């Protein structure tokens, strides 16, 4: 059984690594001080278990779990007892260790992981939905139906009872809602990253902190939509 440790505290990583030494069939193959590096690693390699700190700067352990398409078993490590209920809402999370972790409690956790592995494979958080069928969308502007190719749309912004459909050349204001247009857009290209914005994923120029640059538009990323965005990125 192999595992990685994700925790921004070196001391906390050292504790888990040391406790792992006492488990004969558990190998720590890598350690990460931030979530992004761990996600990059997991895009390249599969592991059996992640020992994951809940509380990391800018990215909670729960965000992390949601980001992974096929999460392995996750054992949360935390200084707080308050997240236990939330933790068990995630199928991938098999245990919840409160720091400082004792050898006895760690061994118990490993037994839980093994028990979970014997039962069934972890199911991904969400099933992938089907991708697009057509390549275009017709929008109604002053009784005229205008054809827009999906790949020319940069983003869609909600503005009350209207939406702005922004393309590379023009902006179109349409009487509709984000919810309605979302149903017409292919999910493999478009992604809602904020309650007021759907973006064309392929048009992203860069991502900085909590915003995305598309064309000349800086679009905020909401906390709840961030994990899905991160999951979709082909990180190097």
């Amino acid at each position, binding site marked *: 059984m192999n595992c990685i440790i994700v925790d*921004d*505290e*070196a*001391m*906390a990583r*050292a*504790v888990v690594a*040391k*406790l792992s030494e006492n488990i004969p069939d558990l190998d720590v193959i890598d350690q990460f001080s931030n979530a992004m590096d761990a996600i990059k690693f997991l895009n390249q390699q599969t592991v059996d278990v992640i020992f994951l700190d809940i*509380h990391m*700067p800018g990215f909670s352990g729960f965000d992390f779990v949601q980001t992974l398409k096929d999460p392995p078993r996750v054992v949360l490590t935390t*200084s*707080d007892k308050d997240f236990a209920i939330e933790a068990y809402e995630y199928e991938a999370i098999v245990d919840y260790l409160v*720091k*400082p972790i*004792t*050898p006895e409690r760690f061994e118990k956790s490993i037994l839980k992981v093994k028990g979970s592995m014997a039962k069934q494979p972890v199911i991904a958080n969400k099933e992938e939905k089907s991708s697009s069928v057509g390549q275009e969308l017709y929008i109604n502007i002053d009784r005229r139906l205008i054809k827009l190719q999906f790949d020319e749309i940069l983003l869609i912004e909600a503005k009350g009872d209207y939406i702005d459909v922004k393309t590379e050349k023009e902006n179109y204001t349409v009487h509709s809602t984000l919810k309605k247009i979302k149903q017409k857009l292919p999910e493999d290209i478009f992604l809602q990253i904020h309650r007021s914005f759907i973006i064309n994923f392929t048009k992203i120029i860069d991502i900085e902190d909590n915003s995305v640059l598309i064309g000349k538009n800086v679009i905020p990323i909401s906390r709840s939509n961030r994990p899905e965005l991160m999951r979709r990125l082909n990180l190097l």
Partner: protein
Amino acid sequence: MKETPNLKYIKELSGDDEAFEKQFINIIKTELPVEVETYENTVKENKLFETAEIVHKLKHKLNIFGLEDAYRLAVRYEEDLKRGETILEGDFKGILEGVQKFVNTL
């Protein structure tokens, strides 16, 4: 009786592995001053949310040194900071000074 920092947990974790014990203490000696400095800066700049974040990190170290009462105070302080209250700042400062003094003896 006032609690004092101890190495009980570290000894339990290390077992007979003296090299690990030494290495672990070195990690703390490296990490603690950085965290304390970050804490002091966020306090100075009145950044309450960031202060709460670093208190969260520091409270784990209190636990490692067996400071259960101090840990409980840190939990309350962290919650207070998130609500914009700093009433426990002085108590927490005293705790940090005690821990730093202890770490310097290791």
